[in-house]
Structures are given as C-alpha cells and as structure tokens.
C-alpha cells in the first residue's frame, strides 16, 4: 500500500482506535493495519497518546486491583462450586450442633427416665412392704382387739399362774370364759420351749387332784401375743402348765411343772 501517508492523513486511524467507525470499516482498517507496518506504527502512537490523555482525565488514581482480586479468584471457583460452598460450614456447624444437642437431650431424657423407673420400682417395693406390714399390724390389732374384748367380758375368770421351782421367773395367766367354756392362756411370761418340747395346759380339780389336759401349745410363736384359745368345759379348780414331749402326754410330768394357779372362789 503505497499511499500509506494519505491513509494516515485521512484521520481514519484515530477513529479506528476510538472504536467509533462502523463495524464494517473497523474490520477493513484492522486488516489494512495488519498488513502495513507504517499504519500499525501510527496506530500504536495514537493509542499511546490517547492512553495518556485519558489517564490525565482521571480525577485520581483508581482503586487498586485488590478490590477485584477477590472477585477474580472467586469467580473461577464459583463457576465450579456455587455459593453453597461458603455457606456449608455454617450449615454444617448448625447441623452438628443440633445433632449434638438432640443426642445430649435424648441421653439426658434416657437417664432421667431410667432413674424415674428405678424410683417407681423402689417405691412400689416399699409400698408392698408397707402394705404387708400394715396387714400384719392390722391382723395383730384385730387379734389384740379380740383378746381385749374377751378379757373385758364380765363373767371372765382370771387365774394368775405362779412360778414353780423349775423356772422361778416364769408366769402365765388363764382367762376362763365359763359361759362359752373357753380358756385363754397367756404364756408371755414363759420361756421359749426347747426343741422337741411343748407346753401342755392342764385343768385341775383339787379333791381329789385330777389333771385333765385341755390342750398342747404347739403353735408357740415368740413374736406373737402368746395367748392361746383352748376349750375348757371342765369344772376347773386350778390350772397348770407343764413342759412335755412333742404331741403332749396323757398325764402331766410334774417335774416339768412351770406354772400353777388356783381358781379363787368367787
């Protein structure tokens, strides 16, 4: 292109660098410039001048690239991994925290629950124990009340039985309900019978001295009231208690006489 100078003088290269030519012309000029070193040199000069002029028109130095840097490097990653990546740690944290709290809560409730269950079982046991105790007490009370009622009867004959040589500390009482022919023997004051032996209660008539067995106290219970109810239809004048082999004897073993008392004439 021999007329490069004319080309340059036309002023089209300035407009080419401004980028204000129609697109078709832009392509044409770009082509011409690429093929002519003179034109290219001119373009470079124009470009440098404009860079300087525009720079001079800047009100100040712009912010550094650092403001964009975050965007630059982020954009590469965000294309592959979207925003959620940034949020993940928080969500994960909340998730784990929630899971932990839930787990801790479940654990706490489980412990609390089993503790409560244990307490219920214990309470139930205590209650059962208490109930049976109450039953025992009630039974005892009823028994005692019954006995008290018997003793309160007007026509009851009370016979204190005194200690004999074999056991100086022993004593007993007989409450004799003559109307019903029942005798209540209180043996609280008697020592516990040895193994294989039982107390036997005798009704006695004095003239002549005749012992009649009215019963064997084979249901001896240390913890109980020690009051036995026996049938006594006899015209008793005295009562005695002897220690006999198990099952009792036909006649009293006098060597083993523990207590003896005479029915006082009323």
């Amino acid at each position, binding site marked *: 292109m021999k007329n490069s100078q004319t080309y340059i003088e036309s002023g089209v290269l300035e407009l080419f660098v*401004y980028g204000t030519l129609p697109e078709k012309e832009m392509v044409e000029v770009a082509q011409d410039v690429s093929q002519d070193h003179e034109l290219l040199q001119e373009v470079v000069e124009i470009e440098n001048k404009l860079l300087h002029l525009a720079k001079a028109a800047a009100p100040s130095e712009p912010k550094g690239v650092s403001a964009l840097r975050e965007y630059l490097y982020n954009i590469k990653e965000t294309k592959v991994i979207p925003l959620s990546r940034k949020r993940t740690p928080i969500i994960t944290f909340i998730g784990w925290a929630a899971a932990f709290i839930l787990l801790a809560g479940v654990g706490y409730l489980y412990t609390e629950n089993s503790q409560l269950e244990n307490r219920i079982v214990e309470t139930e046991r205590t209650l059962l124990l208490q109930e049976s105790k109450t039953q025992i007490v009630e039974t005892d009370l009823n028994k005692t009340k019954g006995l008290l009622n018997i003793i309160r009867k007007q026509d009851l004959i009370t016979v204190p039985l005194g200690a004999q040589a074999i056991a100086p500390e022993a004593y007993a009482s007989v409450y004799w309900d003559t109307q019903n022919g029942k005798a209540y023997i209180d043996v609280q004051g008697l020592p516990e019978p040895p193994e294989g032996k039982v107390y036997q209660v005798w009704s006695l008539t004095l003239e002549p001295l005749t012992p009649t067995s009215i019963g064997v106290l084979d249901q001896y219970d240390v913890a109980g009231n020690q009051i036995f109810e026996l049938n006594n239809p006899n015209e008793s004048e005295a009562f005695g208690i002897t220690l006999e082999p198990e099952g009792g004897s036909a006649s009293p073993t006098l060597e083993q006489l523990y207590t003896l008392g005479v029915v006082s004439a009323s």
Partner: protein
Amino acid sequence: MVNHNPKLVVYFMMTQPDALIDKFLLKDPASFEKIYELYSESLFGVIHSVVHNQEVAEELLQDTFIKIWNNSDKYNPEKGRFFTWMLNIARNGAIDKTRSKDFKNQKKNHTAEYFVDILEAKGSFNTSVDAIGIRKYVEVLEPLCKKIIHFLFFQGYTQKETAEKLDIPLGTVKTRNRICIKKLRDIVGVV
C-alpha cells in the same frame, strides 16, 4: 480462544503487550492484574468524563473490568485493538449509566463537564512534573479540539453525531480530529 490471523499476531506482538493479552484471554488472573495496572487509570478517565462523578466512576470501572474478565473470549483482534475493545466496554457502560433513572436523580453531584475541566483542576492543585505535563495537554488544545476529542473519543460519538453537535461539516470532523491528536503527539514525547 480466538483464532488469530497469523499476520495480525505478528503485528500485535510488536505493539501490544500481546503475550500478556493471550494469557489474559486464557483467564489467567495474574495477567488480568497486569492489564488492570496498565489500563485502569486511562479507562477511569474515560468513564469519569462521561459520568462526571468520581464515586460512580469508581463503581463503573470495577464493572468494566469484571465485564472485560468475563467476556475475554469475545475479543476479536480482526475487529480492532485490544485497547479499543476495552474502551468500548468502559464507554458503553458509562453511557448506559447516564441513562439510568437513579443516575439522573443525583445529577447535582456531577462535577466537571468536559475531560479538560478535570485536566485543569488537576493541574491547578498539583505542582508535580506529571501535573505540568497535564497542563501542557490543556494548553495545546484549542477549544474546538477539546470538544472534538471530547465527543469522539470520550463520548464515543460517530462522525455524524459529532458534526451535528458542533455544527461543523461532516467531512472536516475526521481531519480536524487528526490535527488535534497530532498536537498531542509532541507532549506525549515529553511526558
């Protein structure tokens, strides 16, 4: 990647930071940073001369470089210079901004009207060597030159639009502009 015409490549190699541009076109952030360093202040000047507001201009400059980064694959050297491509993005973004509603509402804040006002303002507040050079820009430019360069380069008007705006014959716009730019040539050598 753009399919370069081999001849074009040879020429651009000599005159543009072409290795840099090639790397940038491959989305290399470090190259982008270099390009920002080289061109940001000039583009800032162009944008500011359109919007006349420093804050807005700063924002637009950031937008411009984000667009440059995101659209790097659209640059075609067969249609013009790399600088021209960036210049168009900057200028168009700034012009779009001036047409937006929120921008029109805050028009009071606008500072200088022409790029030369900035040149003058800068020159009077600064006594550095740089400022002296800037003052020379202003001194050598006739009023008509300032206007022509303002419309053609900073505002991106076509020849026809510029002719109408300045009420001069269409045929003289191109040549008159050339004369004005020629005057700048001497100063650039000094600066």
